């Protein structure tokens, strides 16, 4: 749990005299509100919310990784990092991107604050049976592309409500070829297709990632656990309510142009014309989006000039993401008119990146190197875009005002964000390396 969606749940527990049933199965961190620069918190409301989380965790006996503990970070980054996200588990959090944890073959989904209280009090949650969907990613992902391009393309295909009421299994050779970081990126964005959860069958990649992590089963228990986890695969003759195929062999890097993640196109495309959309509701939505984004139909995406770059969030701020971005910017300079920041997903990612010298590469190129947190993904802390600011962002939502009132967000992969920072406009990252 985190500070934003938990205070009212604890308050209700107190009012009703309810204890937390299984405090040893819950973990808390500070991520949404925390500043990413050194120094005290100047926002009184944010501080009060963080203080409330600290007090609540103390009162109810819940382990909290507070700012400065060395293991804090975005809740969906630290769970896997600690090894407490494991195959076969049911994982919930008052946060829609809880779907991230499905990358390990866990059933993981976001819940509301009332449900957070329900879980704390009972360790259960009433659920209706979801529908099932499988998305198979076939082919080999072209060099230089990433999990983010795969999932953005899939959302472009099924739309932002295409997954509604479903739990999605991502399968196929292109998924199996992904690292755990990449798989987390894919599952993270499930909610952007409207799906409650996304999952990937655990395999050797999963086990190798988990082995030796603090929360992973130790010694003999490890072998027993892995044997059990190997069973967690979809039967060959299983049927799904809906099946979909995406061929990734000819995929191009993706960039969103609108105000939801389904409004996406390959980087070599142009901004679409509302007139080309048959459905009147869709046409109107595209018109609204283009007006908000201040984009004219027919504009090549590579001609769109950007003001800010954000490399961060629970979608793309793991060590692999930072390595890829650093590789793109190494020895280059951020364009003069661009302000670019890198916000590691957790304190551990930050440490690891610094051990590898990535912080120096970013800073030498003109990026700001920040402390871990959600940061500009939703701008609850001081990292906010100004009205009209256009941002290339590795996060997951390009909703109106998401990164600051009146701001304009374009979603893309870490390599593409890094390339945009250098070029000052969108560009196929492969042209830079």
């Amino acid at each position, binding site marked *: 749990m985190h500070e934003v969606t938990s205070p009212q749940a604890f308050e209700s527990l107190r009012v009703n005299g*309810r204890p937390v049933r299984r405090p040893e199965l819950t973990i808390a961190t500070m991520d949404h509100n925390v500043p990413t620069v050194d120094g005290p918190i100047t926002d009184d409301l944010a501080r009060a919310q963080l203080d409330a989380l600290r007090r609540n965790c103390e009162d109810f006996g819940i*382990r909290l990784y507070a700012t400065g503990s060395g293991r804090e970070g975005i809740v969906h980054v630290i769970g896997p990092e600690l090894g407490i996200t494991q195959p076969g*588990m049911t994982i919930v959090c008052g946060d829609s991107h809880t779907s991230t944890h499905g990358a390990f073959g866990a059933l993981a989904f976001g819940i509301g604050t*009332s449900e957070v209280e329900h879980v704390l009090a009972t360790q259960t949650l*009433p659920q209706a049976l979801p529908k099932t969907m499988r998305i198979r990613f076939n082919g080999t992902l072209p060099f230089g592309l990433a999990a983010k391009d795969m999932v953005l393309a899939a959302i472009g295909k099924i739309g932002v*409500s295409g997954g509604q009421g479903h739990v999605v299994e991502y399968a196929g050779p292109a998924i199996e070829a992904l690292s755990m970081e990449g798989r987390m990126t894919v599952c993270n964005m499930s909610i952007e297709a409207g799906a*409650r959860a996304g999952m990937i069958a655990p395999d050797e990649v999963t086990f190798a990632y988990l082995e030796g992590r603090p*929360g992973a089963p130790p010694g003999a228990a490890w072998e027993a656990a892995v044997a059990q986890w190997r069973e967690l695969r979809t039967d060959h003759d299983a049927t799904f309510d809906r099946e979909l195929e995406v061929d990734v062999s000819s995929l191009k890097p993706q960039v969103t142009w609108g105000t939801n993640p389904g409004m996406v196109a390959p980087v070599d495309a142009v901004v679409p014309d509302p007139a080309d959309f048959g459905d009147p509701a869709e046409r109107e939505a595209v018109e609204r989006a283009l007006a908000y984004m201040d984009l004219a139909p027919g504009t090549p995406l590579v001609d769109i000039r950007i003001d800010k770059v954000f490399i961060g969030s629970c979608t793309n701020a793991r060590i692999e993401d930072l390595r890829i971005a650093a590789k793109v910017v190494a020895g280059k300079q951020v364009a003069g008119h661009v302000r670019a920041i890198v916000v590691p997903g957790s304190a551990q990612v930050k440490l690891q990146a610094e051990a590898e010298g990535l912080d120096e590469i970013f800073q030498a190129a003109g990026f700001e190197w920040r402390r871990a947190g959600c940061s500009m993904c*939703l701008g609850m802390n001081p990292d906010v875009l100004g009205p009209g600011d256009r941002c290339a962002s590795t996060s997951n939502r390009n*909703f109106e005002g998401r990164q600051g009132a009146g701001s304009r967000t374009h979603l893309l992969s870490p390599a593409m964000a890094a390339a945009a920072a250098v070029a000052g406009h969108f560009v196929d990252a492969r042209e830079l390396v």
Partner: protein
Amino acid sequence: MRELRSVTGKAAVLDRADVDTDQIIPKQFLKRIERSGYGEFLFFDWVKDPAFFLNDPENREAPILIAGRNFGCGSSREHAAWALEDFGFRVVIAPSFGDIFRTNAVNTGLAPIVLAESRIAELREALAGENELTVDLEQLWITHPGGLRIEFEFDAHAQETLVNGLDDVARTLQRAGEITAYESTHAARFDTRALPI
């Protein structure tokens, strides 16, 4: 939670698809630790547009909201449901909802009703004559004084919660014995309190 057996009143129409919870209540209002008082921030950025539906005085007093498909998609923030309820809405009718919002609405005492686009069109046609609807959560139908009656489906558990204003946690706690029985055969793999600092 307040009981919600039946609601009669005006219906306000927000004719937009994919309205996400970031629009319903922007992030700067999520820093409060209280559960009430969010109504005044409902659709904070969109309300600045004089043509926005909530700026019509008639819509401001409506207890029923008719919205576009995929209403409440995006963030899990229950504050979105709290804001709608606090503003005065008791029912939202839409062709579809974001899954998490739908659950949050029920837990807030706000009824999320799914109706096909064609049925919503019928409703809106009737409302153009006289703006009044009755939504009956016990009978599961919507009626208009002009004679139109539209039945709808609603999850039985959610219906029970809303109609009786029940506390879902209390209901589950009555089944603590079953939970204990499950726990006795399913050992936990770790103890978060034993993890390294």
